[in-house]
């Protein structure tokens, strides 16, 4: 009975399915075409390339490190945004979305004005022996800048969905606000927080514009793909691109599954 009613279609559903199919095709077709244009021996050769391997590792760990470091400060901010009313809250929310809106090359330039050796922060860092430019630190900075809104927004929605009743109950049971935050609010918002972290990590990993401005070297994979493309052409860039897409997909799917598995335990 169920299957027949599920199969029964009306003209609106048909139209939606047709248009949706077109969108899906639009996403899948270029990726499939890219992957199919690469032969396995080519891919194997690229995978053995030290420069490629180094850049993929760099991309993976810098984006993860950027996510974890940012989470420490971004999660409490998300909590604040979900729970408290304060002056200029709307403005703060707007500022958080800024990195998504502005061109990422511009974001890179903006960061550069702060951390270059001539700028205040750059000079201060220089004094204690840290250099941002041409360093993985700069890569992380650029990745974090463009991707942190995904984490904050997701975590904020997560905290907002935690019933305040539970936090009030925890307080009345003798836990101080820090303990309530760590033992009730964060665990209950864990799923949106983790999914926000995955989004932030994925977004950071795929960043090109901002990173290229502030840290062309050490070379993350998107920059490497661009360099090979501009120096040697499509043929040489596409195998790196395919390899990188594959690695990203594997990580993305595995993390999603891990986070999704946690769902049943949570609610």
């Amino acid at each position, binding site marked *: 009975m169920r299957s027949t009613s599920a199969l029964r279609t009306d003209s609106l559903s048909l139209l939606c399915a047709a248009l949706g199919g077109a969108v899906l095709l639009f996403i899948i077709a270029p990726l499939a075409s890219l992957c199919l244009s690469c032969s396995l021996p080519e891919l194997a050769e690229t995978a053995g390339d030290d420069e490629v391997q180094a850049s993929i590792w760099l991309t993976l760990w810098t984006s993860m490190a950027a996510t974890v470091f940012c989470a420490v400060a971004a999660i409490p901010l998300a909590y604040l945004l979900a729970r408290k009313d304060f002056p200029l809250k709307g403005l703060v929310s707007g500022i958080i979305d800024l990195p998504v809106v502005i061109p990422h090359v511009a974001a890179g330039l903006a960061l550069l004005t702060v951390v270059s050796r001539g700028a205040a922060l750059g000079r201060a860092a220089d004094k204690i022996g840290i250099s941002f430019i041409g360093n993985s630190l700069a890569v992380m900075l650029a990745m974090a800048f463009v991707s942190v809104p995904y984490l904050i927004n997701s975590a904020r929605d997560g905290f907002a969905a935690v*019933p305040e*009743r*539970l936090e*009030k*109950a*925890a*307080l*009345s*049971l*003798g*836990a*101080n*606000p820090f*303990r309530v935050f760590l*033992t*009730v609010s964060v*665990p*209950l918002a*864990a799923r949106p927080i983790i999914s926000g972290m995955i989004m932030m990590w994925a977004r950071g990993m795929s960043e090109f514009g901002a990173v290229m401005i502030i840290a062309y070297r050490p070379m993350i994979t998107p920059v490497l793909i661009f360099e090979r493309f501009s120096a040697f052409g499509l043929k040489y860039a596409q195998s790196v691109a395919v390899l990188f897409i594959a690695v990203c997909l594997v990580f993305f799917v595995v993390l999603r599954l891990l986070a999704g598995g946690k769902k049943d*335990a*949570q*609610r």
Partner: protein
Amino acid sequence: MLSVRQICKTYPGFGIKDVSFEVQQCEYFVLLGPTGAGKSVMLEIIAGLTRPDSGSVLLDGRDITGEKIQNRRISLVFQSSALFPHMSVYENVAYPLRWCGRTRSQIDQRVAKLADDFDFSHLLEARPQTLSGGESQRVSLARAVASEPRCLLLDEPLSSLDASSRCEIRSLLRNISANGQLILHVTHDYTEAVSLSTHIAVMEDARIAQIGTVEEIFQHPQSQFIARFVGIRNFFKGRLKAPEAGGTSLRHFATDGLSFSVLTDRPAGQGSVMVRSEDVTITNAASPTSARNNFAGPIVDIAPIGGGVEVIVDIGHGKSLEIAAIITNEAVSALELRLGKKVWVTFKAAAAIFIEG
């Protein structure tokens, strides 16, 4: 002892004004009032979740108005379950014990004892979302009393339960109260108040309208509002007798030398009987009737009320047991009722509502 002094709190379009009351140790105090009267705000202020605009809250003589919530030793139980869904029942009950410097084995012992007392030992590993309403509320109560709070606040703890769990939780609450726990219970349901409380404060329009024992509130409501809200003037405490052999549900209820016939299937024991004034009829002479409750006595008061007349008859034969009847103006003149005249009052056994407690 909990004492609340001249608490005021204003919200846009709502607030509470000058609320004061005291709850002694061992008292079961019910704050009774319609929805929106400000009862829950009062609880939040006592618990420390909301700060009053003025006034103070004292617990055992110490001013705790500005005290942090977690240091107040006041537990709060909500209407719907506030169990933590990411923890097992065991972890929920152990939660308040984690913050008061107990060892692992002390916590184990305490949780096991509570689980035994509150009858959920078999559910310790369960997740809260798999529990029934009654089970959830039992666990919530156990968690609330786990760290031995000075004061237990209950916000409509029975209203989301079905009838049988309600009965079960009521008797649990009576036990907690009998162990000397100070309880402040907020409800809009007068049967809860009658069944559980030792003292009642009626809240009306953001202020306290009357404070007193159950008898005082129900027999002598001080305002039209209270009389209408509690709805029932005829309120008698006493004892329901066991069903006679033959086992009908028509039972005897003894109060102050009189015996009422009551239709109920509740077990024998202490309780109250209520009769709505509208259900009481007055006649000049005893006549055969289907009603099982017939008493004679002099009229002690006749007062116009609403669209009718309230006639009070003393049926206690010298012990002052008053019963009120609301009748029409026409009936007063037809029966030639006047102060001091001896009349018969009659009501059906089915009109007598028994509430245990």
